[in-house]
């Protein structure tokens, strides 16, 4: 298929793999983190991990929106869904994530809560228009990619005077999570050595490549923003290997067909108008990070579910056997988790990383169970 097949050419892939192997010097190692869960999925789906030389090691990052949402936030959504008169709209991935006592939105739905799976924020707003007697709440999750779409519906609701619509804003910011991985003060991250980042593609179509420049400048970590096709990823890995070999430390953009340095100015302005930084937000695995998530501005308070229902936030610890936290920090591989593939499977997930198709555990389970290549991030084994 045009514009797809060109990026999945097996011959080109083999040539790229050979080039990476040639340029990756045996004397050093290349510990590269692909931040985005979509990249993790593509690495496994196309068997790229198997094509890389042993010197190049991919560390899976926390860029899976369903995975990083802490149980406390999910508990808020469940509490809202159980409120009489409320219809909660959510993305499909979210409904199977286990909350406290193995509750989930799916179980709440079976118990009678009015929970609807939507494909986007616009569907939720339409439902509110069509059901004036219901209080429709959109469980707005995701990184910068999905935030503008939430901002749009909040503005529309305000303009049209739709009073029975609100959003439970849980949008998070990519650069904050990268900082945490690099050991920002107070973050749970910093436990691993990362030599460079494969930067997220979709997120960068919104925010641009500029926000990563501080990682090159202040932290000495090269970043290459990558597309989602297998050849995009391989090309990006080669670019990172070259930067490291040449002692360069820059932000490069492999995904030029979609990403520009300054991002999408209209989308950024829209988000700025509707949202403001939260002083602090708890992430699964990364702890409470300052200025790492967004909340609805005072001006749009009438469409902010948190303000309308004043639902308190309470942190809830992960299941004790679940290693999602370490996995999201890149400190463990899914297969290092004691319950991976036994007590925790996609059919019966214990942690969020096994639920979302973008989660590392789900990608490993679906595609990587046969892999002979399971080095630990510290290189032993």
């Amino acid at each position, binding site marked *: 298929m045009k514009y797809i097949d060109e990026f999945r050419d097996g011959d080109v892939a083999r040539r790229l793999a050979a080039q990476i192997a040639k340029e990756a010097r045996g004397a050093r190692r290349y510990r590269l983190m692909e931040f985005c869960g979509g990249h993790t999925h593509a690495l496994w789906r196309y068997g790229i991990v*198997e094509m890389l030389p042993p010197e190049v090691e991919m560390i899976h990052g926390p860029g899976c929106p369903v995975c990083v949402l802490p149980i406390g936030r999910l508990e808020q959504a469940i509490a809202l869904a159980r409120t009489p008169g409320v219809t909660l709209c959510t993305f*499909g991935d979210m409904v199977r994530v286990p909350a406290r006592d193995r509750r989930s939105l799916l179980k709440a739905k079976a118990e009678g809560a009015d929970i609807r799976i939507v494909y986007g924020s616009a569907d939720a707003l339409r439902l509110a228009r069509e059901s004036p007697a219901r209080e429709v709440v959109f469980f707005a999750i995701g990184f910068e*990619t999905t935030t503008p779409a939430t901002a749009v519906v909040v503005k529309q609701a305000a303009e049209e005077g739709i009073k029975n619509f609100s959003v439970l804003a849980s949008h998070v910011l990519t650069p904050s999570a990268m900082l945490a991985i690099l050991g920002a003060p107070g973050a749970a991250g910093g436990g691993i050595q990362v030599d460079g980042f494969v930067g997220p593609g979709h997120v960068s179509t919104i925010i641009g490549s500029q926000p990563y420049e501080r990682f090159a400048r202040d932290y000495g970590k090269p970043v290459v923003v990558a597309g989602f096709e297998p050849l995009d990823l391989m090309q990006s890995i080669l670019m990172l290997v070259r930067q490291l070999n040449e002692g360069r430390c820059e932000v490069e953009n492999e995904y030029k067909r979609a990403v520009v340095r300054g991002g999408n100015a209209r989308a950024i302005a829209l988000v700025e108008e509707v949202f403001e930084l939260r002083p602090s937000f708890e992430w699964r695995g990364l702890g409470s990070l300052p200025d790492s998530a967004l909340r609805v501005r005072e001006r749009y308070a009438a469409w902010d579910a948190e303000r309308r229902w004043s639902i308190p936030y309470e942190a809830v610890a992960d299941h004790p056997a679940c290693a999602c936290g370490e996995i999201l920090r890149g400190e463990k591989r899914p297969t290092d988790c004691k319950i991976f593939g036994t007590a925790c499977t996609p059919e019966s997930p214990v942690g969020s990383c096994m639920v979302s198709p973008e989660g590392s555990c789900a990608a490993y389970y*679906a595609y990587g169970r046969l892999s002979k290549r399971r080095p630990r991030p510290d290189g032993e084994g």
Partner: protein
Amino acid sequence: MASSWGRRLDWDTGRVDMTHGAGGRAMAQLVDELFVAAFDNPLLAKKNDQAVFEVPAGRMVLTTDGYVVSPLFFPGGDIGSLAVHGTINDVAMAGARPLYLSASFILEEGFPLRDLRRIVESMARASREAGVPIVTGDTKVVEKGKGDGVFISTTGVGVVPAPVVTPSGERARPGDVVLVSGTMGDHGVAILSSREGLAFETSVRSDSAALHRLVARMVEAVPDIHVLRDPTRGGLSATLNEIAQQSRVGMLIDEPRIPVLREVTAACELLGLDPLQLANEGKLVAITDRRHADRLLEAMRADPLGTDATIIGTITEDEHHFVQMETAFGGRRILDWLVGEALPRIC
């Protein structure tokens, strides 16, 4: 049509009400003027609570299936044609010749009579074209809010032509060859394209079709086909995994050989879905001894429903019963079951 029941059924604006399932005159009229008229066969016309027929010698096949599809009408078919094709196919996958169908309707109060007639006429057409009559049935009406418009259950009986014909899920053997009869994922994309909240324009139509004539050709060419199955819900991925589990074998599938329409690939790229996990309603998977593969392929391609038939892989020895796939990209991965429901991605 002149009605012998006094009042006429209002096909334009009328709706199903509780009397249509209550056993009284209104129900008898609906049965008479809609179902008996449309399905039009001597066994049903007797209006008994059962159909009585002669049984041919040989082994009988019995299957039943419920249809709860949403939306009820989609490009290339509707719940009615699906309820006929699906059950005929389940009979045919035993290598059998389907003989008769029964149909049970659960109607929701308030359902438009016009839509009901459209569904029943579609069923009648599908049954007539397949040559498999609907010979007995049942109608119930549930209160508004307790159904979703219409649910249909169909049961099918058939007969296996020869003792040697014994396709079954546990008969795949290492070295056997895996074939599919045509393109994968058409039905799934057609349904998704017309589902509320996700409507998108596509030329893809459901592949809903009765496969018994294709199967008859196949069984005639190669009586001892090891496995026959139609990859419906969960798609090709689920079907191959089911067979691998049942037969306690592995599989190696060659991805570039699996036929997928360009439009289906495009829709799946856009939505983040896998065509191999989407439902088919007019396709089958066959597994046969390597020596018979070419003969079987030739027989399949000779049928209008098998023109795109192709060999896609082989059965392997594998204690884990993994279905592995050589990707077009050159890597190898597990082709896994669908988890939950096929849902488009978030971002």
